[in-house]
Structure formats: C-alpha cells, structure tokens
C-alpha cells in the first residue's frame, strides 16, 4: 500500500483510538498514538495474515508487549475487519472482549496472548520464533515494546537468547517516545544508549523516525533480509503524536480525553490530510 493511503488509515486509526478512550473514560492515549505508524505499516504492508482464518499456521505472529496501548491494536484489527468499529466502543467495559489490556481468553482474532505486564513480550516472541525455526517454517514474529519497558531485566534475558539462538525470523520494535508514567525515561532510569545495547547483545539494529511511513516500511523490509541475527527497529516517536495538547506530555500516558478534547483532536487530525 502507498504512503498516501497509509496516512489516511493512520489518521482514521488515531481518531478511533481517541473515540474508544473517550467512551471508556480511561486508558492510554499517549503510547497508543506514538505507535500508530509502526502498527499501520506493519499490518498493511508486512504481516502475513489470513483474514479468513486468523489462526492460519502460515501466519506471521504479532505480540503487543506494551499491552497498555491495545487501543492501537484494536483499531488496526478493526481496519482489517476482524472486529467491528462498533465493538471498539466497548473498550474496558465489563463483559467486553476488548479488555483494558489484550486478553487471549476473549478470543479476538489476531490477539495471540494476554499482555500488559511490561517486560514479558520479548521472551514470548523469542519462544514463538524458536518454535518456527524448530518446525522449519518461515513465519515471521513481530513484537512491539516501549522504551520505559526496556528497564525490565526480563527484556535483556530475552535479548541475549534471541541472538544466541540466531532468531533472524524475529523483528522487535521499540517505540521510543521518551516518556513514562513518572516522567522522561532518561530521568527515571536512563535506557540509553539503547541502540548500542542491542548491538552489543548481537542484534541487527535499524533506527528510524517512527512517524515517517517510508522509513518504517523500509526498516521492516530490511529486517526480512537479515540472516542469523534478530532485528530491532528503534523508532524515535512522539508520545501523543497527532494531538497538540497531548504531544510530549507524560500526563497523557494514562488518561482519557474529554468530549471537548476529542473534538479538538479530530479537528487537528483532519487538518493533516
């Protein structure tokens, strides 16, 4: 799909994220908005999915390690028509399939596993990738993490093991929006130089502007060519991207917009098209 079309989809996804959160009254806009281009390009240009059967054994796998940004995943899955736009409005409500963090037991096509406790997704992805290698299948495994999440030690156990097992079918993405709940990542617990860390752990590292669809697209494509090493895409992003009053504000990590704020945000998003 062309960049121009992906831009339109990205705008639609942003609006859906904000709509869902406003109706839910709680949730995580900042980190959802920073991951939009990363998710849209992945699903529309790279993930091998069978829309008739999301459990197709030939499918690519996606693990949302930063599970709190499930609104972006749910929105992208709605774009893929595996859940309805109406269902998006049930986010976080009791009885909804769309739980506050992705839940496997709700049987949503495209949700491989429950996530939400930061730091586990990379290990899970390593396990899936190892499984694919054992089966001699060429399915790819993708995992999206946050930058604050890199503070979890469990990430580094998984990172060591991904390169030890030469899992070149694994492509991780770190959404580096620079902020976590308690403030800037580099003030709470500095994770940098993150690129050097992954390089020293034996990974292939690609740095991109996480909102530049062409750069993101090229990175996913390049990852597929890498042999013998897993790839990590370090994406520089803006927390709350697309909504001026949310951008770069730690406050907008975990609170929902009001109706007025929603309308204001819509005006801004529409103006970009």
């Amino acid at each position, binding site marked *: 799909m062309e960049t121009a079309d992906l831009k339109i989809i990205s705008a639609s996804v942003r609006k859906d994220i904000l709509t869902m959160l406003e109706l839910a009254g709680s949730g995580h806009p900042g980190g959802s908005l920073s991951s939009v281009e990363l998710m849209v390009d992945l699903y529309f240009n790279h993930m091998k999915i069978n829309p008739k059967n999301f459990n197709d*054994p030939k499918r690519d*796998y996606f693990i949302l390690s930063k599970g709190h940004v499930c609104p972006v995943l749910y929105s992208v899955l709605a774009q893929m028509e595996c859940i309805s736009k109406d269902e998006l409005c049930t986010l976080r409500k009791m009885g909804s399939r769309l739980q506050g963090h992705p*839940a*496997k*037991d709700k049987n949503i096509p495209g949700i*491989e*596993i*429950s*996530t*939400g*406790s930061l730091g*586990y997704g*990379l*290990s*899970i*992805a*390593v*396990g*899936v*990738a*190892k*499984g*694919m290698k*054992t*089966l001699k299948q060429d399915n790819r495994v993708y995992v999206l993490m946050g930058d604050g999440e890199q503070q979890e*030690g*469990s990430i580094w*156990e*998984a990172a*060591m*093991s991904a390169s*030890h*097992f030469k899992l070149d079918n694994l492509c991780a993405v770190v959404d580096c929006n620079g902020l976590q709940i308690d403030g800037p990542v580099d003030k709470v617990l500095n994770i940098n130089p993150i690129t050097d860390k992954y390089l020293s752990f034996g990974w292939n590292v690609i740095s991109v502007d996480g909102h530049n669809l062409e750069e993101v697209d090229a990175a996913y494509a390049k990852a597929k060519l890498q042999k013998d090493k897993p790839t990590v895409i370090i994406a520089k992003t803006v927390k709350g991207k697309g909504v001026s009053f949310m951008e770069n504000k730690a406050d907008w990590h975990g609170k929902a917009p009001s109706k007025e704020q929603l309308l204001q945000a819509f005006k801004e998003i529409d103006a970009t098209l």
Partner: protein
Amino acid sequence: MVKVFGNKATRFGFGEALVELGDKDDKIFVLGADTVSSVAINGFQDKFPDRFANVGIAETNLLGMAAGLSIAGFIPFVSTYGVFASGRPWEQIRTTICYSKLNVKIGGSHSGLMVGPDGATHQALEEIAIMRCIPNMTVLVPCDAVETKKATIAAAYYKGPVYIRYGRENVPVVTEESTPFEIGKACVMKEGKDVCIIACGSMVYESLAAADILEQNGIKAKVLNIHTVKPIDEKAIIEAAKECGAIVTAEEHQKFGGLGSAVAEVVVKNSPVPMDFVAVNDTFGESGKPSDLITKYGLKDINIVTAVKNVLKRK
C-alpha cells in the same frame, strides 16, 4: 513393614517420562536453565536435540519462551530447581501462562529439605502455596519415581498449565506400575477408621511408616495420597473426615498455604473434624544431610504419630 519397591529419585521419573513422551509426540519441547543434568532432562536433550533448548540462568525467559512455544503449537515442559521454577518467574507464570491458560508444564525439581547440603536458598518449601493460589493452575506432588513418571505423562495431555513438584534425593518407591493414576483422584494407600493421614510427595512413605507404628498401638490409620493438590479430590477428603473423624496432614513444605491448608479448606467447609499438620514450621531450612534435616525439622513417621495422638485427644 511398609511395602517398598525400590529407592529412586523422583527427578528420574520425570526425566524418563519426557523421553517416552518425546518418542511418541513431536509436539513435546523441553527447556532447561543450566541445571539440565541435575534435573534429569539430559536424556531428552540427548535424544531430541532439535526439540530442546537450554536458556541458561534466566528463569523468566525460560517461562516466557515456553509460553511462546505453546502459542507456536508445542507442548513445552520446563524444568529447573523448584525455587527458581516457581519463585523467580512467578508473575510470568501467573500473568503470561495462567491468565492465557497456556499449555505449559513446569517441572519444579529439588523440592523440600531433602535438597540437603546446598541449604536454604535451594530448598523449595513454598511452591504448593504459591502455585495453587493461581487460577487455571494444576498442582501435582507425586509420591515416588513411578508416580512421578505417570504424573508427567498425564500432565502432557491435561489441558492448561501444570506444576509438578519432585525431588533430588533417592526416596522409597511405594507404588507400582499397576497402581492407577488419574489427575485429581486421591489414592487410598491404606484403609483405616481411627484417623486419616493425608500426605503428598515424600511424606506418603513416612505416613505409611507412621500407620505401621500406630497399628502396633492399636490405632488403625487410613493413609490417603493426595498427589493432586489442585484440583483437590474433595470427595475423598470428605469421605475420610466422615469415616475417621480426625485428620493429620503431612508435607515436606511450609505449614502455611500447602497441602494442609488445602485439606483444611475442604474439611472446615464440609465436615469439620480435629486436624493437625505435619509440615515445616514457618522456617527456612539449612545445610545438612537430607535424612538429618527431615529428622530435625520434624517430618518423620514419629512426628506424624505424635500429631495423630494429639488429634485423637480432641476427637
């Protein structure tokens, strides 16, 4: 005399089961964490190297990878020492594996004081408590190597997460190949009407020995082997309470939260009878010879006998 059919460490039962499973089913995948020979999974590693991974000293990744492998369609078994298999990755077990009801089987070797000279850091005494409180988890504590092999094979095809607790030291074999085994179904090892001794793991043998001593004192003790602490065989426990009117539990585990607590939950709710608990008394272990430690920490047949006599006074 307790009928004993040999002396063998339960970890070997686990290891043998894995090889048998691996032979029949190529969905079986085994993961270790640098303790591979010690926990007896090297047999599987040698025979099926393509379906084996050693993740090194990284237990959170051990469980995470197992979760991923289960999504990829395998039946993953992980094994390392009990403290590290259940404790360190506890949240991963809870949130990644149990919440998603993944088909991951966890072998917690080196359980109890009988780990011996390594001492308290390595003597797992809390796994029953911290595993059974998680929804969707099944907890098995087989009594000998023969039962451990059956439990492991049964676990492979029992839907969902399973924790199997077993040990390092040679212990008496008190069951036979022909002894039936079914997850969730307690085994009556000895009939009796005066008191019921309910035990799991290594304490089943001690309970049978205690029953012998009691018999010489004119007390007929029933011995119930609860190899499945969760889901616990409530029917068997209630029957025993009604039949015997007094219960003593025995486990190589802390007194808080383990088998004793699980049995008490059933008894108090359905058929309250006097109970006493033979267990580690809320303390850590220490270095020593396994047999000396069992004696020092009060986990022998004579301790069960004392508990029975106490409980009979309250009947």
